[in-house]
Structures are given as C-alpha cells and as structure tokens.
C-alpha cells in the first residue's frame, strides 16, 4: 500500500508537470493508467486550499468555525466533483460513449488543479490587495493583469476539461458539445444554488 502511494505520488508530480508542458499526451496517459490513488494527492492539494480559504473567510482563530467552514467547503467540492463526473458519464452513455469511468474520474480530478490554483491565488490577493479596485492607473493595470491570469488559467482548464471528455468518454467534438449542452444548464442551476447558500460564489468545477 505504502509503495502504491509513493508510486502514485511520483505519477501525480509527473502528470502535473505533463499537464503544464504536454497536456494532450499527459491526459491520454492519465486516462490509460486511471490510478484512483492519484486522486488522494489531488484531494490533498484541495484540502490545503480549503484550510487557507477557511482562515481568510472566517478571519479569526475560532477552531469550531474554522473546522465547520473547512468541512463545508470540502464537502461541497467533493459533492460537486461527483455530480460533474456522474453527469458527464450518464449523458455520455446516452449518446454512445464507450470510455472508462475510472479514466474520466481521475482526469476530471486533475482538471481541478487549474481551478484550485485560481482560487488559491485569488484568496491570497484578497488578503494582500483587498477589493474593491479603483479606476486609477494602478487599479486598471492590476485588473488587466488579474484578468489575463484568470483567462489563461480558464483556457488551460477548458483544454483539460475537453481532453477529459475526449479521452475519458472517447467522443468526438460534436458529441462533446452535446454532452456540454446537456450538462451545463444543470451545472449552471447547481452553481446558482451554491452562490445563494454562500458556499462558492464562483463555481468550483
């Protein structure tokens, strides 16, 4: 078990580097291997973020509130992950996908890495340079840089999400668009629900 965990850690690190430098080849390899143990490390990275987010959101050292906030964030993110994978899988099956659920689940887990990087950096910036931004030259310059950073990560995330459906469900572009057309309205409503209850204002997908 320990050796499997170490092997999974090495693969996890290799895959993260691969997703940065060679996303296409790496996504194909992740789906092919489909090692669920690698999700442990994805979960660990997410847990680190939830600790930071709890500290920033609660903004005081009150263990009960911090613990509750941590479990709310972790639970919501875990449920969202399961919902997204189940939705893609079920809709994919309806239109004739013949991929592997394990492959889709592991690769979608990796697609949370750009998401968590964005949330992590945004939380730190919230502390260092709290909003609102002003319309001064510095304010606009910061806004432009922040938006470029956000859009770049979003495009990276989109690439990995597309490859998740391509390799995880083994679908072509047309059918991927059908899966998205089926899943996105449901995820939109779900994200609105998350926003209303105040867990994630920006969807943690």
């Amino acid at each position, binding site marked *: 078990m320990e050796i499997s965990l170490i092997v999974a850690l090495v693969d996890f690190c290799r895959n993260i580097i691969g997703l940065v430098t*060679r*996303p296409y080849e790496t996504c194909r390899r992740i789906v092919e291997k489909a090692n669920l143990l690698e999700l442990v490390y994805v979960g660990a990275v997410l847990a680190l973020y939830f600790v930071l987010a709890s500290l920033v959101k609660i903004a005081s050292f009150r263990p009960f509130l911090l613990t509750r906030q941590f479990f709310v964030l972790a639970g919501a993110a875990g449920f969202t992950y399961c919902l997204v994978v189940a939705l893609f899988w079920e809709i994919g099956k309806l239109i004739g996908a013949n991929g592997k659920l394990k492959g889709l689940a592991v690769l979608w887990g990796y697609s949370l890495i750009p998401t968590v990087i964005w949330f992590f950096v*945004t939380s730190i910036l*919230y502390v260092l340079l709290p*909003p609102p931004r002003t319309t001064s030259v510095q304010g*606009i310059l910061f806004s432009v840089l922040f*938006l470029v950073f956000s*859009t770049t990560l979003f495009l990276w995330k989109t690439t990995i999400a597309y490859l998740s459906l391509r390799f995880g469900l083994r679908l072509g572009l047309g059918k991927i668009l059908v899966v998205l057309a089926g899943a996105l309205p449901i995820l939109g409503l779900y994200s609105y629900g998350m926003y209303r209850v105040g867990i994630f204002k920006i969807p943690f997908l």
Partner: protein
Amino acid sequence: MTYKTYTTNTTYKKFVKRWEEVTDLPPQTVGPLTPFYKAIVRRIKVMPWPILVVSSLFIVISLYVILGSAITLLVSLLQRGF
C-alpha cells in the same frame, strides 16, 4: 534469440503500442474548418502557454475596449468570488 533480434522485437512492440495509442481515437475533423482546428490544436498539444497567454491578452484587451474602466468592477467581483 540474439541481442539484435531481441532489441528489434522490443522496438517493434514499442512501435505497435505507440501506434495503437495514437490511432485509438479517430482524428477529429470539423468539416471545412479542419485545417484551422488542426493549426490551433498543434499549438496546444505541446507547451500551450504562449498561445494561451496571447489569447488571454487579446480577450482582456477586447474586454477593456468594450467595458473601459468598468473592468475594475468585474475584477472586484471576481476577487470576492472565492
């Protein structure tokens, strides 16, 4: 089995494995837009960051042209969104 035969077999097996990986899914085509699609995908497959950053810059500058200094409101909203 001689060493030469052994290495030839291994190389052949590696080649077959790689070939099966590459031809596992049929290549994506998008009708008349296929050359355009392939040109973009080629840049995304290996080290996609230059094209991702350039595309983002283009999107954000377009947004700035449309919204003007109101992009600061958008950023304030996003910063509160975690």
